[in-house]
């Protein structure tokens, strides 16, 4: 399964789906919803956490959360 955790810096993708229960509601509210575009802006050392641009929102999440969100490359 391809997830946000696999994205390289600057790569864009579309969020496909994820198990709602595992992902914090706050992330959904910030725009992490199926169909929205996601891009990795920066990675901290060891690719964790990831600094993302999701649907125009800039936010950072940990790799473990990113690995739960399935994507489709653009």
């Amino acid at each position, binding site marked *: 399964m391809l997830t946000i955790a696999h994205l390289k810096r600057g790569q864009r993708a579309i969020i496909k789906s994820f198990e*709602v*229960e595992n992902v*914090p*509601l*706050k*992330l*959904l*509210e*910030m*725009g992490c*919803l199926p169909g929205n575009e996601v891009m990795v*802006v*920066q990675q*901290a*050392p*060891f690719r*964790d*956490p990831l*600094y993302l641009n999701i*649907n*125009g*929102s*800039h*936010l*950072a*999440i*940990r790799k473990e*959360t990113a690995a739960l969100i399935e994507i489709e490359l653009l």
Partner: protein
Amino acid sequence: MARQINVALIGNPNTGKTSVFNRLTGLNQQVGNYPGITVEKKQGVCKLDRGLKAHIIDLPGTYSLNASSLDENVVIELLLNKNDKDFPDVAIVVADVENLKRNLLLFTQIKDLGIPAILAINMADRMKRKAISVDIAALEERLETKVVLVSSRKNEGFDTLKELVINHTTLSTKPCVNASVIAPEYFGRLKKAFPNQDLYKLWLVITQDVNFGKLERGELNTIATFQTESKSNLKRLQQKETIARYQFINGVLKETLTIDTANAKDFRSRLDRILTHKVWGYAIFFGILMLIFQVIFDWSSYPMDFIDSSFASLSEWVKNTLPPGDFTNLLAEGIISGLGGIIIFIPQIAFLFLFIAILEESGYMSRVVFLMDRIMRRFGLSGKSVVPLVSGTACAIPAIMATRNIESWKERLITILVTPFTTCSARLPVYLIIIALVIPEQRVLGIFSLQGLTLMFLYLLGFGAAIFSAWLLNKFLNIRSKTFFVVEMPNYKVPMFKNVAITVIEKTKSFVLGAGKIILAISIILWVLASYGPGDFNNASAIVMQEESSNSLSEEELETKIAAFKLEKSYIGIMGKAIEPAVQPLGYDWKIGIAIVSSFAAREVFVGTLATIYSVGSEEEETIKNRMAAEVNPVLGTPRFNFASGVSLLLFYAFAMQCMSTLAVVKRETNSWKWPMWQLIAMSAIAYVVALGAYQFLK
């Protein structure tokens, strides 16, 4: 009397609520706490016109009405409780023009609650550069409310905003998104069970995570038990709700907002590439910390020397001018010396708050969170723990409150427990005076002052102690809690002068007033205890004269001997002697012992206490520092404050838990006495052992 209406400022974090608040209220504001919890509550008054005043509350930032932290919960509690005296007559929803889509999510929720809501789109000054344009009239029509573009930075749009607030009664309260579209069947059942309640309000109460302590729900209490769906189903419904809201918002914005995305490679991404870089990012962060500590030490010395000498002359002036007597002595020796001991630190405290405010305001703090998360996680902390640990250098109390946005309870608890190790500004007075006494005034490599480096080392030691104990706690605390971590990375901003100035003034004022009260009380008590005594105290001159009759002493020497004898036989001397055996192995005498004991109320009391004890009975007024330098160890004949005892004292203050207010806050934040008591015992024990080791090794 003017009529008053309640206005609440609501919005996502970093949209400029506080800036709007500052524009509307100026310095006409107070910062307090919400009852029972330690979320900061800012309120102020703004004169509208026609004899109308607005009582404005700056609510904590929140992304939605689904609370996931204590902070956000305050917002929901207020909006759900019509009987609250602060319940808004009208809400101003502050949005950032660059993040309109996300900001509107919260707006639609507030509107759906039936609260009149004005949409204030802030940061209008950035629209030109970002090629953003908003069709206000169309937006007003689609959202069925009033919309205003404002710029807190340029002070534009506020007259219109005030006008809208005055006319708030004309606002429509029709919902944007009908709640029952989320799940018709479920909402149908809800409606049947509670026919008189507002559906959306019911839904909010049912879905709130209730992990934040006892909430005042009033009449709504009963429905919290209405749970016809499993938790995961409820969450699925919340996702549906979010999607429905975004659908509505996308529809609205498609017609009203245009952004020319041509200039995508902007300032922000260029700056991010450096500031969050794998190597440069860390180097810059470290450099900034280094700069802050150098500045605090170097720049503040000028105003501090001035304050120091002013207080010494003031005290002398009082002694020489007022009629001699107990009251004059109390004023000159107790109160003025005690207050001088705290006022002298205003420059440094103000500088520290200045830097922290700038780091927060500029948006840089979030980058630090991003950079540090992985490293902090190793020690059981979160990237978000960096903010408490850095603001802990100002004061542990707001720092502990700043842990509220850490999502995982274990990470948050560990952060709360270790934050008091960071060097708060109350330790600064002690450090500075001891460093000035025992560390030579030299420069290293021609630029860094050795004293500045020592101070920096103490700050690093504080961080080190915090990190190390976090690692231990992480190993031994057996708490399971779900960890997740979402941080917004705001745009970089040039800090607004007004915001920074207000923060510095507010925080410094509350520090000085808070500490000032304790210090004043303690100086008076100490002065009384040092100026009176039982038995021998009252015959001091006779006894000393008799003892010394064989030695031919000058008048002056005799006076000094009498004063010293009196101090020893006073109440405080007797108490000090009683605890002396406990502090002697650390290199202290009973006077320092008393200072340490009294600083369990608050650390900054140390200097004031010594000032009071030393000045009692001494004829000429000297500055505290000179007086301390002159103090000798009668057994060894060396200065009392030498390298060994100085280092021992520095280490003691670095580790000891000496602050009642911090303990009280920890109790409130953790909801039990267990954690603050552990903190007190463990930290004091560590302090004692380390100081003991250092003195015995160095002496």
